[in-house]
């Protein structure tokens, strides 16, 4: 995908503008029965003295698919880090699965940004998936035929089947293609039956057919298995049919709501502080033009592996 000449397109209907500090019946439903999986209230984050985003209000219920969108460098990945508790919020309130961020990480599946295993990684896909299940335990698993071992093996097989990776999960993961590796990594994130799945640009580095296939897989997991998904995305197009909610981050603030509400000329113009137009193509697709996206920033975004500054 050519990042320079790229236009952002989205299928959406005409919508209304959503003001940045969006509060929707925030405190009433929170305590009732099944609370929100993620609740942000007036949240802000600061990295290196610079405020990346602020005034973000967001409530994600069980089984909802949320995309975190925005230009590069606004702190989309940082949002994931905040939800994981790896980075403290500079302001406002953040609750994840009813606890402070980082407290409930055992119930969260996390897929970091662009990981790939090169051909010299001689470990099977099933081993990588299995590490997601018990890799944080002490000791070494003994190759004895115990009930526990059988249960582990069954769960791994089940989740590999769920992502459709049974055909190649036994191969060394370094020899799997990018799409195959991504499916196995999603299986790894899912193997503990998380209630929340945090995905950081999972479609990045995949070709177009794989993008839509993996997007459909994530949508299916989200809606059928009831796992709430927060997905950082560079391009909303492949996931748009599956989305319930959009968080649009930009330098000027943030907007949350349904895709139809957020991806509009008025909202984006206000967020960017510069005229942005959302056009409707003849097939109903939306094209976002006038978005200030410097190519230099784009190529730079994977420069600092693991660093918080690499916020995409």
């Amino acid at each position, binding site marked *: 995908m050519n990042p320079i000449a790229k236009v952002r397109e989205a299928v959406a209907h005409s919508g209304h503008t959503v003001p940045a500090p969006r509060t929707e019946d925030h405190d009433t439903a929170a305590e009732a029965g099944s609370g929100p999986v993620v609740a942000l209230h007036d949240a802000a984050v600061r990295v290196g003295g610079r405020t990346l985003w602020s005034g973000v209000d967001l409530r994600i219920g069980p089984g909802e698919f949320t995309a975190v969108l925005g230009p590069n460098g606004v702190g989309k990945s940082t949002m994931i880090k905040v939800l994981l508790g790896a980075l403290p919020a500079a302001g406002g309130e953040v609750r994840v699965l009813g606890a402070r961020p980082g407290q409930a990480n*055992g119930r969260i599946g996390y897929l970091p940004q662009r990981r790939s295993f090169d051909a010299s990684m001689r470990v099977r896909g099933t081993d*990588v998936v299995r590490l997601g299940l018990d890799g944080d335990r002490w000791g070494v698993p003994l190759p004895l035929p115990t009930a526990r071992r059988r249960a582990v093996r069954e769960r791994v097989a089940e989740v590999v089947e769920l992502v459709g990776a049974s055909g190649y999960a036994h191969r060394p993961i370094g020899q799997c*293609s990018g799409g195959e590796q991504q499916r196995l990594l999603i299986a790894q994130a899912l193997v503990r039956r998380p209630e929340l799945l945090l995905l950081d640009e999972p479609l990045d580095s995949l070709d177009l057919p794989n993008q839509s296939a993996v997007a459909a897989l994530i949508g299916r997991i989200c809606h059928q298995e009831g796992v709430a998904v927060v997905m950082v995305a560079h391009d909303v197009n492949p996931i748009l049919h599956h989305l319930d909610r959009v968080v649009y981050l930009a330098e000027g603030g943030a907007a949350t709501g349904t895709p139809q509400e957020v991806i509009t000329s008025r909202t984006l113009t206000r967020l960017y502080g510069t005229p942005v137009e959302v056009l409707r193509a003849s097939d109903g697709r939306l094209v976002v033009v006038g978005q200030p996206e410097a190519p230099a920033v784009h190529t730079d975004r994977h420069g600092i592996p693991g660093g918080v500054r690499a916020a995409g």
Partner: protein
Amino acid sequence: MLLADTAVPAWSWNLIADFQQMWSFPFMVNAFRAGAVTAVVSAVVGWFVVLRRQTFAAHTVSAVAFPGAAGAVLLGVSAVYGYFALCVAAALVIAALRGSGDHEESALTGTVQAFLLAAGFLFIALYKGLLEGPQTILFGTFLGITSTQVTVLTGVGIGVLAVLALIGRQLLFASIDPQVAAGRGVPVRALSVAFLVLLGAATAEASQITGTLLVFALMVIPAATAQNLTARPILSLALAVLLALAATWLGLTAAYYSPYPLGFFVTSFAFAGYVTARGMHALHTIRGRIRPSLPAKEVTA
């Protein structure tokens, strides 16, 4: 390297008689014991070295073993303590230099490594009484391994394996997938430091059999061979141990019955195993390609 007093013993192909003859010397029994302990420990640690791609760190630690041993001899203490002291110290220095990033500070490590090697050379020059010169430290020997040395090697070896048994699964997770492991609460950074210390101890052990320059013969080659043969973690770990053990004992036998040095034999046997494994792997790949091409695969973008 030669058995100085006696002529080179003759290999008779009567295995029982040969081994009885070889093991009638206490120093050979000690060499086989020490070799076994070292092979197991370095193969297991080396398996993680290969997986984590830390061969340069391993190389640095092993190079530092040379001034360690030379310095210890110069000070009049057993070389064993020199090996352990400097190897573990070097591992800690590497851990400290790496900072928070996971990539190796190769330039800095290389600089320090060069200086320490030079220091080791000076120690050798200062200690004029060292009979074999730097050669035994660099390339290993099986002569004069004492029972005390075997006890020390065994003790340290058990310690290393016990710690690895405790942290093994978390270390595997942190090696394969550090980001997700960290997200799951695995102490990735602490594990990395702990592993470097284990690496230092294992390198010190291997140095005493293969010499500091040929540590990779037991540390890297068996593990690389095993990982080439299978992608099952437990199986390839067991295979690495077996290969290292075979290379060491075969090497000891060959060195006993020939006038040539131990380090050469151990390394050559290990290398032969590696070449065979690569050859089999390549053959397998070629056969896979010749077979009717599979349905269109996903392309890595």
